[in-house]
């Protein structure tokens, strides 16, 4: 019975991604540039691609930077997302529809457009952010360049990504909160439990599977995010000093047309993300088994 249930998913994925995955692994073991692409024929070089990547200083610096970046993004997304989800529960119906529709509006903005609007808001010449901050007398932010240093560049990118990721997390958690039986909460109130205790003992356990899933998904996505940092920092300012893993992959694999190396980096990224999210994934898998 269970096999019949999972068969359609397995078949679909295998049909479409089966060959590409095999191709990707094979590519990573070959010298395969534009020349080879045209001739559909690569030169086998064993693990040379992997060795070259692992010996690349830029790879390691980028990896560390991306891990820190991912941690910051995931933490902010999950905490703020949970807070907004809880807020959605507390507000009255019209405000709830307003806020959740607003979140969906945010979610539905095409990334390229969101980046452009973000740039307009934060550019040093006539950005709204500088204008508002100066008007609020929080200091002189006229012509403040928010993209001057790597830290501020990546902070801007983080804000953009977290802003774009909050809707999914908030709405999904809200849906999760909808599964918490209000009678249980009422009963606990009658027994004298405070808000924090109710949250910790009733809500959190029910939310745990979803929290773990969202965290693992966030780690996976934030580790591999490409469009926002690449477009917001801008092609002319992207340097090895502010690379993120996906940009490193793009530059080394696609731009240099070194597909073999690109494949090796892709598979390495796969392995690294696997390791980073293993804790959450394991817990998730175990929850299912316990029942």
């Amino acid at each position, binding site marked *: 019975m269970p096999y019949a249930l999972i068969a359609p998913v397995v078949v679909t994925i*295998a049909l479409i991604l*089966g060959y590409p995955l095999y191709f990707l692994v094979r590519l990573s073991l070959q010298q395969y*540039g534009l020349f080879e692409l*045209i001739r559909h024929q690569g030169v086998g070089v064993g693990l040379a691609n992997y060795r070259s990547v692992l010996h690349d200083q830029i790879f390691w610096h980028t990896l560390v930077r991306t891990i820190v970046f991912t941690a910051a993004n995931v933490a902010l997304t999950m905490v703020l997302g949970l807070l907004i989800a809880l807020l959605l529960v507390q507000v009255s119906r019209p405000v709830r529809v307003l806020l959740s529709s607003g979140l969906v509006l945010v979610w539905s903005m095409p990334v390229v457009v969101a980046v452009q609007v973000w740039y307009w808001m934060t550019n040093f010449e006539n950005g709204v952010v500088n204008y508002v901050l100066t008007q609020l007398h929080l200091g002189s932010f006229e*012509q403040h360049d928010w993209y001057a240093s790597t830290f501020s560049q990546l902070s801007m990118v983080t804000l953009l990504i977290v802003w774009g990721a909050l809707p999914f997390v908030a709405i999904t958690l809200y849906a999760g909160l909808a599964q918490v039986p209000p009678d249980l909460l009422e009963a606990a109130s009658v027994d004298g439990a405070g808000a924090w205790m109710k949250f910790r003992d009733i809500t959190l356990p029910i939310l745990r599977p979803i929290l773990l899933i969202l965290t693992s998904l966030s780690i996976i996505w934030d580790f591999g995010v490409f469009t926002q940092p690449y477009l917001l920092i801008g092609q*002319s*300012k992207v340097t090895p000093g502010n690379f993120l893993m996906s940009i490193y992959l793009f*530059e080394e694999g696609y731009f240099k047309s070194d597909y073999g190396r690109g494949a090796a980096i892709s598979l390495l990224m796969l392995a690294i993300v696997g390791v980073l999210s293993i804790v959450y994934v394991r817990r998730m898998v175990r929850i299912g088994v316990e029942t």
Partner: protein
Amino acid sequence: MKRRSIAALLLVTVVAAAVAATTSGATKKANASSITVWLQTDAQSGWADLVASVNQKFQADHPGTTVNIQYQGWGDHLQKFDATLAGGGGPDVIEMGNTEMTKYMAAGAFADLSPAKSGFDNSGSWLKGLAASGVYKGKTYGVPYYAGSRVVTYRSDLFKKAGISKLPNSTAAYTADAKKILAKNAKKGFSPIYIAGTDWYFGMSFVFDYGGGIATQVSGKWKGLLTSPKSIAGLTAYKNFFAATSRASKTTDETHPNPYDVYAQGQAASMIGPSWFSCCVGAKYKGSTAQFVMPGHVAGTSMPGFLGGSDLAVPITSSQKALATDWIKDFTSSSSEKTLQAKGNIPNATNLLGNSVNERAASRSWFVPTAKHWVDVENGNILRNMLAQILTGKLSVKQAAQSASDNIASVLNQP
């Protein structure tokens, strides 16, 4: 063990899919008498009627053949092209940016058009800079399509108010004019000449104006030229020119912000860029905007401008190479080029050149080294970083040039 057999089953499914994929034959061939042409969106928004009329003529000359035009975007057309090179279904004619050509020519992506070269209109007088981008190891792979140069777009009213009666004929004269304009317009952030600090298309023009260069090939190996005395003189001249005339950011490029946006806000009296900049100067200044050719440091000469442009090539994977070549012949015919010229572009041959500012500016031009790995130099922002270091004073001109030159040589000399 049951687990093993399930794993085996899944593995077999994956492998079966792979085998099926690799043995089910080539993609269905397009209708035998049809060709697919990839042009950029600039054509769709700028001269779609020209494309339509060329197609009409082509289809009349080749009854039974249809032309399928697919418009591409600059951001991802190469990614798409690569995918079709790998999997088939690619175009028969493709428009390539002139800086994009060399990498693909070196990889053997295009058909050799040398035998058909004499059949193209004006092939004897093709613009040198543009034609060079389509030639690799003596063979012609790309047909020049159209070009664009760089000109000065300026506010004639502000020039008049500053007492400038005739346009500058040397960079020194232009600098002096800029100072006059600055005296009359002391607004915060106002630039007499708006130039983005890392606008290497303009910055390198100084290098070429002084007789320097970026890199050259000496017995097969690339050697950097930025450290030559002439190049250093050019870079120093750029540094001084920028300091005296532009209040733009020293570290940002020519799209953040767009010079014409700065101009439209009233924060620039002139800007240097492609001639189409005049489209977007805003309603307020449209009437008082005109253009002139950027002068060089020697009075009476023009500064060599970066010659941007596109070529048309026939991918090696095309199954309709003859038809594709004919289509290119029609699309780059003299009459076709005249239409492109009327739309503000520079036509592909010197005998067609007219007297517009854009075309006069193209009389002295420069182009990037035709090296397989030049795109890596551009993508690595080597020249941009060098300019930023020079302008901010982080490194001396000599130091910045040395490091950039070494960098460029090592990138270009990769296998």
